[in-house]
């Protein structure tokens, strides 16, 4: 998706309005949201749906930051700055989910704390 050439920045001048461009982006976002909602009801493989949902959200995400938040027209440094936080947060979430998803982290049910009989369920 590349922006129309006309809206490239031209230093020192009023920029051409991005009015219509923004509206187009918003429409795309709305459509993607619609697709997402429909997707969860489709009888497709779970993995496929998850993959698609994640991809679609990522696309929405990128549209908003690059166009609405005009990272695309700003200095590269803003993108770097934001992505430091974003990637670190993503990495941390990923790690946490893996840590808690591991077998060692299956929580004890409250009963098993007291009753040794329930131990067998854990081991």
């Amino acid at each position: 998706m590349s922006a129309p050439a006309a809206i490239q920045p031209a230093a020192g001048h009023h920029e051409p309005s991005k009015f219509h461009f923004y509206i187009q982006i918003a429409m795309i976002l709305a459509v993607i949201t619609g697709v997402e909602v429909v997707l969860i009801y489709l009888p497709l493989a779970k993995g496929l749906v998850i993959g698609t949902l994640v991809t679609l959200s990522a696309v929405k995400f990128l549209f908003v930051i690059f166009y609405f938040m005009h990272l695309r027209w700003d200095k590269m440094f803003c993108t770097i700055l934001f992505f430091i936080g974003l990637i670190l947060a993503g990495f941390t979430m990923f790690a946490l989910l893996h840590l808690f998803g591991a077998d060692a982290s299956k929580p004890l049910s409250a009963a098993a704390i007291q009753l040794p009989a329930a131990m067998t369920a854990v081991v």
Partner: protein
Amino acid sequence: MAKALAKSSFTEVGHAPAKTFDLFPRPTAKTGLFGWITTVDHKKIGMMYGGFAILFFLIGGLEALMIRTQLIVPNNHFVSAQLYNELFTMHGTTMIFLAVMPLNAAFFNLLIPIQIGARDVAFPRLNTFSLWVWVVGAILLNVGWLSHFVPSWKFGGAPDVGWFGYAPLTSKVFTPDLSTDLWVLGIQILGLSSIVASLNFIVTIINMRAPGLTMMRLPVFTWMALVTSFLLILALPAIAIALIEVMFDRNFGTNFFEVSGGGQPILWQHLFWVFGHPEVYILILPPMGYVSEILPTFSRKPLFGYPIIVFSGVAIGFIGFGVWSHHMFTTGMGTIATAAFSIATMAIAVPTGVKIFNWIGTLWGGRIVTRTPMMFALGFIWMFMMGGMSGIMHSAAPADAQQQDSYFVIAHFHYVLIGGATFALLAAIHFWFPKFFGRLVPEFWGKLSFWIIFVGFNCTFFPMHFLGLNGMPRRTWTYDSNMGWNEGNMFATAGAYLLGVGIFTYFAVLVYTFFKGEKCGNDPWDGRTLEWSIPSPPPEHNFSAIPTVHARDAFWYEKTHKAEIAQEKAALIKAEESHGGIHMPDQSWYPFFSAVGLLIGAYNMAQLHHPVIIMGKDVLSSHMPLAITGGVMLLTSCYLWALEGPAGYHIHLDANGNPPDSHGGHY
């Protein structure tokens, strides 16, 4: 040229001289109480940070001495178990959040604008706000002590949950008293202060550099401050969330760490250490910066391997985000996770080692002048290396199973925190003292305090390695005489007293110097960076002309190109004067007022559900109205702050570049 000129403004594009609004007249006092609380001058703010931090360092040290006194002999009854628990909790919390962090913040404030050739930080009033918010946090954390002296203040003593406050000990069931609520809010507010301050420094360093000062010419200290600021803004949110969750658990019945509701206390540990480990690098990176400034100065040689040192600083910072679980090797994470975090932790040794090697490279072939700051800096390298080595021993997870929560850990982190961070801070205080107070600390006394501290420190903490290996657990208020720990503890306590004497000497000498010390010129150490090019103490506007930077060691360059620089400078002063003089930001009441609002709000928030009792009488059935009052005060102040705008005034210099006695008129 135009670019350089524009630099003198702190405001955004086109700070048209807006008429400000006058509910309170804008403060103008430069001295006196109001001068200090409304100041936006980064140097004054830095000094206040420094003063408070040193005060808390001494208080934290006093707490440490009480801890050591209790442990001097087995089965001692100097303090009760409860008081001991409060002591180590507050000792750790104080030293980390109220001593080392703000001392670093002090140096950020004092040095960054000057080192980058700016006249202030990017958002001066925000800077004032950070300071006072920090003070609010400090008050909330310590207010619990009062209940030991005034029984009607029912806080239940100072916080007693350990500096990392593991859930579920922090839940209402196990610590019903207010001290934990105050701890939660206190840390939260200190975090807020740090985030705001760090955002400010990030913008300052990235955006307000003098012409010619490229990132790869930035003094290493400033670089490390930048990395530290990034670590702060990225690490603190994790603990902010964790604290919110505890707060909700305690006050609103959520189940985040409530076991009966399905909560998993281990989540607190993860969130805490996601913050906590980067935090230790937040503590050590600025010290690495001081040392990187001091070593070259006293070796008469530029820093060896500048790009590598910078790069490894960044690497340490970011690898540091991937190792947090090494504090949790004993929580049963399973083999894979343990292995991954173990290896990642070891990896940190590599960039850290690179720094050590390059510091040695800096010394190599130089002419080492062992003045007091240099002694502390060299002490830093030795001691930090030792602390790092015991860190590596911890990183071997199975071995750590024996060391975790034992005195071996205490030994490790005091080597990195005192031998590392504190030594470097003491070096830095000594090094920059002449700059900000215009007086030189006497060498003899400086060196003497170094040696007492050095010996005392090692006597205190070296034996702790063996105490730990001999099975002494940490956070124990008493121990038995048959455990083989008697001699080690006795020795450590004696060492701690000696260390106390050393610290006392160090600060006593500073106080003496402040009043009576030998006056010194602008550049007592033959320094390399821009701060040494301006008068001691620096004038309010720092630079009569924003310098143009031509080389990495900017001031050394200036010294060898005097004529060229003088010419450049004269032209700049003239040009600036013709543009209306030096623009300085106005002082403001509102940062202080908003902090007061925050204090009132948070203090009452902590005891929301308790009745308000004044002189034994129930005045209000809950603290809600007071909490809301505080909140409203905070919001109103912020609004008025936004309305008043940065404004500012001009300073006009005479032909020699000296400010005249009177300030320029206000808009």
